[in-house]
C-alpha cells in the first residue's frame, strides 16, 4: 500500500481549510470524491498511487478542522473558482483529474472552464447532465434499502458492506455517521435539488482526452448517460463496467484502476 500523508491548505482568503491526502509517486493525479466523502475511496486511491502522485482533496466542509467551509462558497461557480485556487496552491499546472459522481461534475465543469489546466480527464459515473426521460435519482432522500440497491450491483457484497459498515468503537461510530451525512450536506449544497448546474452549456469546451467509466448497474444515474457525456466531449471514450453500480471504483476497484492507469499511461 502506498503511504498517504495529509496536507492542509488555507484557501479562499483564509476562510477555508482543506485537507488533501497526498501519496504515491509519478505524474500528478487529482481525485475528486463523490457525495459520501473520501473515506471509502482510499483502497482505490492506493491502486492509483502505484503509478501516480495522487492528490485527494476533501470537499469544502468535510475536512476535520473546518466543518463550516461550505458556507463560504455561495454557489457552483464559487466552487469551480475555488478548485482553480486549490490546484494553483498545490502547484499543479495541468494534472490528470479523476472525478467520481458529484466529483465528476466538478471535474468536468473545471475542465470546461479552464481547458488548458487539465491534462487528462476521467469521469466515473459523473452527475451533471439531466434527461427528463431518465431523471437522476436524488441520492440524499433515498430509503436505506433503495439506496443500497442504487449504489451497488451487489447490495450485500463486500464493497457495499465496507461502504455502509461502521466502526465498533461508539465514538468512532458516531463520527463516521456524522461524516457520512455531512459530506452529503456539503456536496449537496452545489447539486440540490437537481444536479444540472450549467455543464450542458460549457461541456463542449473540454479539450482534455477523456475517459468515461460507468457501472452497468448504476441506479443513481443510468449508464445511458455515458453516451450523453461522450457525445458532448470530443474524442472521449466510454468503458462500461460489469457487476458495478454507482461506485464501480469500489465494487470493481482493480478493473477501474487498471482502465484509468492504462488511459493515463501509468
Amino acid at each position: 500500500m502506498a503511504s498517504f500523508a495529509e496536507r492542509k491548505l488555507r484557501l479562499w482568503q483564509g476562510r477555508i481549510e482543506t485537507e488533501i491526502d497526498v501519496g504515491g509517486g509519478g505524474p500528478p493525479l487529482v481525485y475528486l470524491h463523490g457525495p459520501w466523502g473520501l473515506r471509502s475511496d482510499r483502497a482505490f486511491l492506493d491502486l492509483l498511487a502505484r503509478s501516480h502522485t495522487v492528490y485527494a482533496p476533501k470537499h469544502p466542509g468535510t475536512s476535520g478542522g473546518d466543518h463550516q467551509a461550505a458556507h463560504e462558497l455561495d454557489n457552483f461557480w464559487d466552487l469551480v473558482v475555488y478548485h482553480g485556487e486549490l490546484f494553483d496552491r498545490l502547484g499543479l499546472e495541468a494534472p490528470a483529474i479523476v472525478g467520481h459522481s458529484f466529483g465528476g461534475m466538478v471535474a468536468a465543469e473545471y475542465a470546461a472552464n479552464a481547458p488548458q489546466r487539465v491534462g487528462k480527464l476521467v469521469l466515473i459515473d459523473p452527475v451533471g447532465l439531466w434527461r427528463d426521460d431518465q431523471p437522476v435519482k436524488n441520492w440524499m432522500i433515498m430509503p436505506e434499502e433503495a439506496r443500497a440497491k442504487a449504489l451497488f450491483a451487489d447490495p450485500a457484497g463486500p464493497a457495499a458492506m465496507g461502504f455502509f459498515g461502521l466502526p465498533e468503537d461508539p465514538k468512532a461510530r458516531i463520527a463516521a455517521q456524522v461524516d457520512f451525512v455531512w459530506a452529503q450536506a456539503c456536496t449537496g449544497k452545489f447539486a440540490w435539488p437537481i444536479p444540472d448546474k450549467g455543464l450542458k452549456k460549457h461541456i463542449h469546451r473540454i479539450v482534455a482526452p477523456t475517459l468515461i467509466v460507468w457501472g452497468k448497474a448504476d441506479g443513481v444515474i443510468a449508464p445511458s448517460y455515458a453516451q450523453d457525456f461522450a457525445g458532448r466531449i470530443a474524442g472521449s471514450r466510454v468503458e462500461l463496467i460489469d457487476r458495478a453500480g454507482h461506485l464501480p471504483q469500489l465494487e470493481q476497484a482493480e478493473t477501474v484502476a487498471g482502465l484509468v492507469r492504462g488511459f493515463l499511461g501509468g
Partner: protein
Amino acid sequence: MKVCMFHLMPYRDLPADFDRRYNSAYIDPLWFDVADADKVGQYYNWTLDEMVYAAKAGMHGLCTNQHHQNVYGFMANPSLMGATLAKLTNGQDVAIIQIGSTLPSTNPPTRIAEEYAMIDCISGGRLVAGFPTGLPTDATISNGVVPLDQRERFREALDLVVKAWSAKEHFAWNGKHYQLPMVNLWPRPIQQPHPPIWIPGSGISSTAEYVIDHDHCFCNLNYFGARNAQSVVERYWELAAKKGRDANPYRLSFLQLIGVSETDEEAEEYARHAEYFFHNLLYTPPYYMAIPGCLEYDALALAMQNPARQVNLRSLTYKDFVERGFVITGSPKTVREQLLDGVKKLRIGHLLALLHFGSMPTELCRKNIGLFCREVLPHLEDLWDDEWEDRWWPERLRLKRKVAALAGAAS
C-alpha cells in the same frame, strides 16, 4: 396564560388503506389518487368556521401554519387563512397567530413582511408574527431550497423583514441570499417596531439558541405531548438562564393534542381520529425528515449522539397514544388536571391546543372546542399573569386584558 386554537387543516377522508399504500404523509401521496378538490374546499371552509367558533368561544388566539405536498395539513399560504380570520374576527380580542409563513422558501422574503403587515392592519394590530424555518420536506423538496442554506436564509430573511417593517428611510439590502435595491415597504404593521415574533423549533437544533439570543418566543410544536417534552423544554429553560434571560413562561409556546368529552368513557369518540392522525398524517419516514444539511454540523453531531427514540407510530393504538400522553383526552376534569400538570411543569405560557386532529368531523371539533372553552380554559387562563407579563402578545390585546381585569376586580 394564553390558550390558542391550532389547526392543521388536514385531509379528513383518506382511503382506509392509505397507510398500506403510502409510506409517508408527505411528498408520496398522489393528489388524483387520494384527494377530491370539492371536499378540500369544504375542509377549508370548515377550518375557518371552526377557528371563528373557537374565537367566539373564548380562545385567546388562532394559529395558522404552512405546509406543502402532503395530507397532514395544507394551508399552503397561511396568510390567505390569516387574512380571512383577521376580517372575520374584527372587533374581537383574539390574536391572529401566523406560525406561519416560511421565510427560507419565499423569495423575496419581503413578500411575507408585506402579507403580515396587511394582516396586522386588517386585524387592527392583533398579529403575532411566527416564523418557522419550515419542515425539511417543505423547504427543500417542495420549494427546492438547498438544505444547507435553509437556516442561513432564514436568519438573513428575518433580519431583512424586521428592518423592512420599521426602517424610516429607503435602504438597500445587499445580503448573501437576497439583494434588493430600494426597500420601502407598504404597508407597515400597526405594531412597531414589529409585531411579537414567535419561532417554532424542535429544541435540538440551533433554533432555540437563536430565539433566546433575539428575545423571541420559542414554540415547541411537539406532537408527542407535554409528558414527552420534559428534556427538550428543560434544555430550553437552562439555555435561557445561561444566556441571562428571565424565566418568563411566555417565552414558551407548546402544542398539545386535546379531546374533551362529557366523561372519560365518552372520550373514546376521539380514538379513530387520533389513530388516523398518528398513523396517516404524522407518519413521515426518516429519509424525508433527516435530509443532509437541514441540521447544522453541531446539531447533527448532537442528534447522532442522542438519537431520538424511534417509535413506529403505525404499530401503536389509541390506547397507547393516551397512555403515553401523545394526546390528552377525557372528561373536562381529566383534561384540565393533565394540562395543568404539564403546563406548570414545562412553564408553558402559550398553550396551542390542537382541538381538531385527523379525520375529526366538524361537529365533533365544535363540541371539543365548546367543552374545552367552557370547562377547561377558565381553569388555565389565570396562570402566570400575577407574576409575569406576556411581552410576546399584541400590545393592544394586552391592554384590553388589563382593563378587563381591573373592571372585574372593581365590580
